[in-house]
């Protein structure tokens, strides 16, 4: 995918700690200021600024034609975005919550993902589909799904998910600049995570499509993305006490998949655990583990393991802590890697 030179955030935001939600907002704001073709579309994105306030102030600054409160209809939102993109606009649509994007799935699978292909390249669709996803915020039913496997299984889409504040800004700019549809999954439990943005250091991130090693180590590789990154980094800290030196790879992008970074890491460490909170069966981990096996078989000291959410519909909030893979489950898996290697 094309690299986009992410630019420095402007000084009012710089220096101060910013949340991921603010960084996303800033990315849209800057994209809209740079390119009049960028339009925001969704439920409550205007006056309210989105239920997570990610589009806060955009309608006031750019007008309701650029940041539009649509009727309550996800297929309609994405379907009209298709037409807008056909006419040269760059729509950025917000699906209010993961499970409410399902009515739009038909538009996504039948048209958004295929338009470039079926028109022999004549009609690329530069649409960004922002989906707040994942659990851990105590949401009621239909507010915590991890729907990435559905999107991954649909050729023609890019599927990316930032896990840091800098990435939220840089990757969303790149997604909006992309000439292909991007499903931009926002880990909603990281919306309020903060980072300090320095005015001297512009936000330069790896282009989307590349994974990043967030922590180097020698004993095993944790392969993860989005909401599970913080879990893995914490687990890696805790593992030090056991004498395990864990490397953590943040995929950032599920489609395209950065085999190179993952393979280089696993070949170095010889062991891998894939960690994500969506269900394991038919989930992203199966694909990732298979890819590692195909490329690293002779370097592996143990089978590639998966730590994932259970294969259940997302549980009620009072039970979600049992479902979500936490530090302990990651450490247990790491322990199993060691044991199997020794036996």
């Amino acid at each position, binding site marked *: 995918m094309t690299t986009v030179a992410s630019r420095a955030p402007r000084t009012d935001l710089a220096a101060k700690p910013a949340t991921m939600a603010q960084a996303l907002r800033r990315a849209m704001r800057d994209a809209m200021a740079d390119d009049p073709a960028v339009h925001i579309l969704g439920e409550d994105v205007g006056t309210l600024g989105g239920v997570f306030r990610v589009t806060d102030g955009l309608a006031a600054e750019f007008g309701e034609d650029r940041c539009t409160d649509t009727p309550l209809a996800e*297929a*309609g939102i994405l*379907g*009209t975005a298709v037409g807008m993109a*056909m*006419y040269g606009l760059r729509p950025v649509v917000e699906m209010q919550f993961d499970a409410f994007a399902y009515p739009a799935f038909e538009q996504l699978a039948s048209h958004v993902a295929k338009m470039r292909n079926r*028109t*022999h390249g004549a009609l690329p669709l530069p649409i960004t589909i922002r989906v707040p996803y994942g659990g851990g915020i105590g949401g009621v039913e239909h507010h915590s799904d991890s729907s990435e496997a559905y999107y991954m299984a649909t050729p023609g889409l890019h599927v990316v998910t930032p896990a840091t504040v800098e990435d939220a800004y840089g990757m969303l700019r790149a997604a909006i600049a992309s000439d292909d549809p991007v499903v931009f999954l926002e880990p909603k439990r990281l919306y309020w995570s903060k980072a300090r943005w320095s005015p001297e250091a512009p936000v330069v991130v790896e282009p989307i499509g590349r994974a990043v090693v967030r922590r180097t180590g020698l004993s095993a590789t944790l392969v993860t993305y989005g909401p599970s990154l913080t879990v893995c980094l914490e687990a890696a800290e805790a593992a030090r006490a056991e004498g395990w030196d864990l490397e953590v790879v943040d995929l950032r992008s599920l489609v395209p*998949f950065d085999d190179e970074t993952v393979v280089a890491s696993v070949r170095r460490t010889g062991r891998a655990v894939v960690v994500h909170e969506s269900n394991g069966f038919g989930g992203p981990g199966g694909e990732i583990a298979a890819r590692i096996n195909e490329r690293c078989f002779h370097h592996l000291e143990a089978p590639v393991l998966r730590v994932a959410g259970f294969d259940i519909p997302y549980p009620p909030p009072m039970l979600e802590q049992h479902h979500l893979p936490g530090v302990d489950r990651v450490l247990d898996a790491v322990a199993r890697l060691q044991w199997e290697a020794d036996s």
Partner: protein
Amino acid sequence: MEEVHALKKSSTTVQEPPGPVVHRPTPPPAWQPRTDPAPLLPDPEPYRVLGTEAVTDADPELLRRLYAELVRGRRFNAQATALTKQGRLAVYPSSTGQEACEVAAALVLQEQDWLFPSYRDTLAVVARGLDPVQALTLLRGDWHTGYDPREHRIAPLATPLATQLPHAVGLAHAARLKGDDVVALALVGDGGTSEGDFHEALNFAAVWKAPVVFFVQNNGFAISVPLAKQTAAPSLAHKAVGYGMPGRLVDGNDAPAVHAVLTEAVRRARSGGGPTLVEAVTYRIEAHTNADDATRYRGDGEVEAWRAHDPVRLLEHELTERGMLDGDGIRKAADDADAMAARLRDRMNAEPELDPMDLFAHVYAEQTAQLREQAAQLRAELDASDEPADAGQGEAR
């Protein structure tokens, strides 16, 4: 019990209006009753031109043009159906009986306008000027869309029902935002009006006042399901009222009538008046596609009754009566159509040129590593199969 008690207790904290509660004769202030539903409602009878006074106002040039296009369209349907029998087309959904709708849809648009067709609307696409072979690639199976939609301002023929309708709304909306004079005309069948996308598209269009015309070809059936099982509405055009746009009913076998109603709807859209829903009452003479057996769900009598309203014959009759067409003119139209069909047959009998590597060429703007790998694999397989037939059999290999 405790909960009930708690509820009761808290309800006493709600402020009571002073004095006794009286019945309020007026609705609350937020309620704004609509007083003008009538202009939105369709007339009870479909609009007709042929055989009525209105025909005297019709432009003779237009009538002759419509006739020529109807004859060509009829012939096109017959030729395409024949091509399915020869295996040249995978499938063909014929629009025989509906040619008036197809032709009018193409002719009411200006150059810069967009047409959003469904899988049945090949004739409309061809009447708009697209190369028939390009229009048929979807049905032949060599590529999904055989043309550049931007170049012709024709969206890809949509197979999923009603999904093209929100696209039309979005495009028209975008054009209006840019200040461009563009109208989108979207075609859909009677069955398609039951889909959620139909509702959402109409609603968006009305709220945004988008310059769109929704054109329903009510041909009586969605595959095997008759209209009565599709909707309980008095007509499909009635559905417009609930969205706040006018609904119009037209005789779909009366080409000048369809042309007139669509022209008015397009004019309205172009002048900022917003969307219109037009329902054309017509009939699908052939089966749903060549793969369908229509005798399972309808009788010959019904089909014959509709043949008496054949759109080509209706217009032919009118033009002959009015001295605008004679035997020579009829023969010339038929000959032109035959010539078109012969060209189509020849071109469709030529093998399409396929490049299997196209499979990977248009998935993303930039090839992903995975796709590069898979493309290399296919390349290798293709190279291997390109070997001469006896290669690989000798000891040397």
